[in-house]
């Protein structure tokens, strides 16, 4: 990593600290609201919140059943009110009324714009790509089983991890119906690519590939076959098993959740870490450990959460005695603060920023925690709320 890259990264953080107002000091309790006390959640659990881009706080989260059926629910906030809609399993009202489409697994949401998104629908062993803007529309002509999808910053291309003929690779798709121009980017015969993420300005595509020999970070910058590097070499990174990644937009930094591999038979508790890799795309990457006490839910790891151009990083601390508190790390000062949320058993979180009425950017937090606000059950519920002032929100919070 060059001195120039270090200096540029530090300058960006400093500028963020100076220009972007931080969360209000002294407002210790975050006014979260339980948003999953609805009939559709009866006997089910919430997971995987994902905030939308744009001007209105809006997110999609998954609702899972014991039989592993997964539905998608869209939630948006206007003033003090929340509105929601569940993505139907079928466009046919008749099939919906008969419950014929209830058994499905809708996952892998990738927002297209502020009010529509792509998602993966798995039914009966098939896994297909859909688009939702009020009605689920299948992307036609896509061969293979789609595992994951990401959208580029210009909203002209899709990037998808597609399994075909026993191989899973990353494809770039564009053109008529997104399938007339399909280009394979990754070529690893045994790697399983996931955690696709795109830098909005440069269009660089990052991913994690899991192989028999371990995990590695891949990149295509620009996202062309000739620019693909299946393995980004960063000193120290091979010591970890990479789980998920987030790009700090506007920079060449990625944040990664990772696991420290244990020896077979080891009785050491499993450790999960939050890592930063800067400059990986240039070939002179440097890695830093940001936190070593991360809690992650079972299954696919959620993405690391950031705000204020990467100044603040949010994670859940593996401190069961304290109910797995949500921690905010201020990277300019190095201080860590437990956010007072009023929730217990936090499982995963997501953060995004929206402009308030006065034009200031306000981070919104979505956190999956155990139990509802009345202690009636022990299922995973979803809580959302702003981390700074939001006109009208406080009045609606119970």
């Amino acid at each position, binding site marked *: 990593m060059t001195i120039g890259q270090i200096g540029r990264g530090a300058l960006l953080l400093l500028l963020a600290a100076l220009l972007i107002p931080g969360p209000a000091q002294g407002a210790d309790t975050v006014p979260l609201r339980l948003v999953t006390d609805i009939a559709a959640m009866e006997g089910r659990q919430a997971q995987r919140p994902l905030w939308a881009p744009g001007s209105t706080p809006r997110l999609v989260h998954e609702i899972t059943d014991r039989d592993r059926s997964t539905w998608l629910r869209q939630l948006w906030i206007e003033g003090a009110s929340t509105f929601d809609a569940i993505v139907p399993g079928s466009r046919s009202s008749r099939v919906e009324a008969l419950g014929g489409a209830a058994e499905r697994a809708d996952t892998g949401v990738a927002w297209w714009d502020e009010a529509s998104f792509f998602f993966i629908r798995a039914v009966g062993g098939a896994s297909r790509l859909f688009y939702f803007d009020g009605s689920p529309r299948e992307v036609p002509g896509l061969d293979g089983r789609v595992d994951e999808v990401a959208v580029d910053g210009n909203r002209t291309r899709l990037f998808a991890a597609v399994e075909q003929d026993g191989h899973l690779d990353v494809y770039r798709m564009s053109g008529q*119906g997104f399938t007339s121009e399909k280009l394979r980017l990754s070529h690893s015969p045994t790697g399983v690519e996931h955690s696709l993420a795109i830098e909005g300005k440069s269009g660089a595509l990052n991913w994690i590939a899991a192989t028999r020999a371990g995990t590695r970070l891949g990149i295509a910058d620009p996202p062309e076959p000739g620019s693909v590097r299946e393995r980004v070499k960063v000193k120290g990174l091979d010591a970890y098993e990479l789980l998920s990644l987030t790009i700090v937009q506007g920079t060449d930094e990625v944040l990664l959740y990772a696991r420290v591999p244990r020896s077979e038979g080891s009785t050491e508790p499993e450790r999960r870490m939050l890592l930063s890799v800067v400059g990986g795309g240039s070939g002179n990457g440097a890695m830093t450990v940001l936190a070593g006490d991360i809690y992650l839910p079972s299954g696919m790891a959620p993405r690391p959460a950031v705000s204020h151009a990467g100044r603040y990083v949010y994670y859940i601390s593996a401190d069961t005695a304290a109910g797995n508190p949500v921690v905010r790390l201020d990277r300019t000062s190095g201080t860590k603060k437990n956010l007072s949320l009023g929730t217990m058993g936090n499982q995963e979180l997501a953060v995004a920023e929206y402009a308030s009425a006065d034009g200031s950017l306000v981070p919104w937090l979505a956190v999956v925690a155990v139990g509802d606000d009345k202690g009636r059950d022990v299922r995973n519920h979803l809580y959302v709320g702003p981390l700074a002032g939001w006109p009208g929100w406080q009045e609606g919070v119970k």
Partner: protein
Amino acid sequence: MRVEMCSFRSFRLSGRLLVACSLLLLTGCPLSSGTGTVSSGSATADSPCRRSLDGDLKTARDRLSRGHPDEALVYVEALRACRSVNESLEFLELASGVYEELGDLNQSWWALYTASRLNNTPDNIARMAARLSSFEASYTRLVAFGPAATPVDINYMGAVLDDATYAVLQKVSANEGVDVGAGRWGFWLFPGRYEIMGVRHTLLAGQTLDLNARKSR
């Protein structure tokens, strides 16, 4: 007449559909005059009204339940050639399901709406009312200017234009509307983003957009 039986609206002509159509042509109209026969005073030997209503409904229902609405459509369209089937609740309910599965929302609505206005038992009336409510809650009603007016200019503005949405837009462009309830004329659309007469709309399920109300402002 026999050619008309095979003149159906469909988005794909599958191999099975060709076989079904061929069978209808080869075997001709069933001449059974049992209790399930669609009959009318002017029925002739070759009339579609001589078809076995029970038999064709059973076959169509079977095809639909097996996920082959295009095959079920062949029987629905064959029966529909006899106007008296419009008084059969069973036929209309099945036809609505077939059209809906094929994405022909206007025809699906027509069948349900017609069924809801038949004289029938209270239970059936309640069931049809519930089906209508469910339909209205799932799709978007576009009230247009009338069958003699200039077709509405409409474009889909979402990221994925699928066949069913395209077919619906074709109907709007061709001004092939229906009575969408309460004497209004228009179309049923899949919820989504559209540009209608130069104005962008995000049409939600259950929403009604009345172009006449906008025009009168």
